[in-house]
Structure formats: structure tokens, C-alpha cells
């Protein structure tokens, strides 16, 4: 059932998958813990919104745009000094998580902002009329109504993070993408490369399926 090349490289593949899991996992955590709050501030600080603040909005908006517009490989190289400062080295899986986390934050904050923009204004207005504080508006109204879009966006983001993580070989980040390139492409093991691609397609399909199902389940609109 399992092709021989896969058996042969089993331990390397498992290790590479583990590295991908770490890189993507850190990205997802960064997206939720930092990207979501930034997306929330983008939403709340925009014109006509609850915490309208031109300066905060412009600064966050520009930062997010800058990170997202720099070609990812350039961003990785550009961040090397910062990574070294933070992790102590710019090489390896741990170091690779730094640029990944930064692109993840920028990526998800935008999608989170978008899903909050889809919440009808009137609902938040009703919240304010009820005497809700900003914190109450966020947690009791905004996130409740935006939750389906937030989950769907996180799924989309995670698929992108997997894709970003495949180029982390350039800083020794490893991962399944790097494995496919080093063993499959550079050593002309085309069949191995193909199998790894199939594994990745299956992983992305599964992820998308789970994300879409959850997003649909929690959507009562």
C-alpha cells in the first residue's frame, strides 16, 4: 500500500512534518494572539467606529500593508538581524518561526478585520444603546456575530502559512516543503516529490474541510 520510497524516507518525512507542524503552529498561535487583536483595533479605530482614531488606524493599516506587500523571501532575509536578536540565531526551525509569525499576524489581522466589517452596524449600535462597554461590545457582540468569518479566515490563513513555511529551507527551517525540494527535486526523485505533494494536498484538504465545517456549524444567521 505505502510506496517503497516513502518507507525508505519515513523517518525524514516524519521529522520534516514535525518541523512544518511547529512552524505553522506558531504562526496560528501568533495570528490568534496578536493578529486578532490588531484586526479588532483596525475595525474599532476606523472612521465612524467605536474607538475612531485616525492615527492608530493609519499606523496599523500601513504596517499590515507593508508586511504583506514585501515579497516573503525578502521579508525573511530582511528580518534576519531581528530574528537573531530574538532567538539568538537566524538559522533553524525556531528561527524560521519569527518571519512566519510576522506574516501570519499581518495576514490574519486583515481577514479578521474583514469578517468584523461584515457584522451589521445596527447590532453594535444596539449594544451601545444597552450601555455595553467597549470590552462588552467586543466579546459579547462583535466576536459572537463575526465568529464564523473569524474561523473561516483562520482556515484560509493556515493554508497560506503552510505555503509560506515551504520556503523556510533558505534559513534552515526544514519542513515538508524543504524536504520535497532537497530530496525530490534536487536529487531527481520525482516520485518522492510527487508523493510528498500528495501528502500536502491531503493535509490542506483535511484542514479546509474541518475549518469549513466548524464555520458552518457555528453560523446561525
Amino acid at each position, binding site marked *: 500500500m505505502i510506496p517503497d520510497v516513502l518507507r525508505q524516507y519515513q523517518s525524514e518525512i516524519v521529522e520534516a512534518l514535525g518541523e512544518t507542524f511547529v512552524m505553522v503552529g506558531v504562526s496560528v498561535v501568533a495570528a490568534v494572539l496578536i493578529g486578532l487583536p490588531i484586526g479588532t483595533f483596525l475595525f474599532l479605530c476606523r472612521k465612524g467606529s467605536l474607538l475612531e482614531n485616525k492615527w492608530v488606524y493609519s499606523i496599523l493599516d500601513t504596517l499590515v500593508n507593508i508586511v504583506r506587500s514585501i515579497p516573503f523571501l525578502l521579508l525573511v532575509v530582511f528580518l534576519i538581524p531581528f530574528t537573531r536578536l530574538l532567538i539568538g540565531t537566524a538559522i533553524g526551525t525556531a528561527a524560521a518561526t519569527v518571519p512566519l509569525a510576522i506574516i501570519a499576524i499581518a495576514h490574519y489581522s486583515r481577514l479578521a478585520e474583514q469578517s468584523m466589517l461584515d457584522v451589521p452596524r445596527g*447590532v453594535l449600535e*444596539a449594544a451601545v*444603546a*444597552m*450601555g455595553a462597554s467597549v470590552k462588552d461590545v467586543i466579546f*459579547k*457582540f462583535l466576536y459572537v456575530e463575526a*465568529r464564523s468569518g473569524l474561523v473561516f479566515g483562520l482556515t484560509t490563513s493556515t493554508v497560506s502559512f503552510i505555503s509560506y513555511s515551504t520556503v523556510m529551507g533558505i534559513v534552515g527551517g526544514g519542513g515538508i516543503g524543504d524536504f520535497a525540494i532537497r530530496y525530490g527535486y534536487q536529487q531527481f526523485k520525482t516520485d518522492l516529490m510527487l508523493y510528498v505533494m500528495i501528502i500536502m494536498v491531503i493535509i490542506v484538504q483535511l484542514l479546509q474541510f474541518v475549518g469549513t465545517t466548524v464555520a458552518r456549524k457555528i453560523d446561525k*444567521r
Partner: protein
Amino acid sequence: MIKLTNVSKSFAQFQAIKSVSLTINSSEIYGIIGASGAGKSTLLRLMNILDTPDSGEVEVNGQLLTSLSQAELRQARKAIGMIFQQFNLLANKTAYQNVLIPLQLVDFPRHERKARVMECLDFVGLGHAADKYPAQLSGGQKQRIAIARALASSPQVLLCDEPTSSLDASTTAEILSVLDKINKELGVTIVIVSHEMEVIKSICNRVSVMAEGEIYDTLAIEPQGVQHLEKSPQSFVEQLKGEGGG
């Protein structure tokens, strides 16, 4: 109960409310009618500072809202209910959970919350729909849930912005009856903004007519009572025949 003194409100260059003063007495049902764009909604939204007046004073429940801090204003708003044309319920929460929110906001005693929510739902005749999501309810039912939500924290004032404007005639009657009942049984002061004359005539005892950001006139009227439209299929047939035959 509600007192506006020389309130003005502009949006950019446009003056939506031009130095309006009015007094609404306790336990009144007060109507505000006028053409589209007259400034009715804006005037209503000034009453709980959903729109902040550029000048003038707003007093509700004996509190000068225009002089309160943000925290005090939030507190004051908990005693001012509001309902909207678009209902503005949370689509991801059941009817029960929607009505529960204001109780969480006012720190209502935990073990009494369930009884209070059910009391409010029963008051609007929807106790049986507690576990339904808004998407599973009709427009009239959604507005009744919104009313139950507005009532939960026992407000002294209920502000209504076009509460029946997206509903058909018989559902409108249903909502107006509930509002009338809230006024008569609970003594809540009600302000209704509408562009529909029948709505205003049926339950209001005083009405201001607005035009171009000003109050054109204010009159005391005798509420005519809610006209309960027949909605049995036979009544539709008879109305059709009556009109067809002349």
C-alpha cells in the same frame, strides 16, 4: 421624563437638528412623525446620546446625560431601552440568549436571570420560542424578542425607531399592542418615531411633527386604539370581493 433643551446636531456641513426643545412626560406615549430626512431618527438618537449633540442639553430620568462621563452615560443607558426597524438581534444567539445579554450587562443576580428572561419572553408572548434563533422567526416575532430584550433590565423609557416599518399591517398591530401594554402595565414612557400616520394615531397621546430638522408642531391627540386587522383567509376573500364588486 425626557427633556431636550436647544439641541442641535450637524453631520459635516449639514444641520440635521436645528435647536430643538421638547419635553416628554412620564408614562406618555409620544410620537414623532415627519417626512424622510426630517431628522426623526437623529432626534431619537440624541435622547440616549447615540448621536452626541453639538450643543444643547439632554435630560432623561432626571439625569443630565450631556454632562455625564462615559462610564456614567453607560450606566444611564441601562435604564433607557431602544428598539430599531431592523431589530438588531444577535443572529448567533437564541431568543433566550439575546434577552439575557442586558441582564449580564447590569449584573443582574445570577440565579434570578432565567426567571427574568422567561418573564420578558412571556410578556411578549414568545416564551415558547426561547430556543429559536432569529433566522427561525418571522419579522414580527423578531421585533417582539427585541422588545423583550429592551425590557429585561426594567427601563423607565423605551425609544422606538420605526419599530413597525418593515412589518405588514397585521404584524404592525401586534407590535403596537405590545408597546401599548408595556406603557399601561409597566408604566414605561415610550417614544415612537414613525412615518406611518396609523401607527402614531393608534397609541400616541402626544405627537410632534418634524420637518427639516425642526419641530413644526406638537399636538395632544386621543389614541384611537390598535386596529386589529382580520387575517383569516376568508377575510381576504371577502375584502377582495368587496373591492372587486364595488
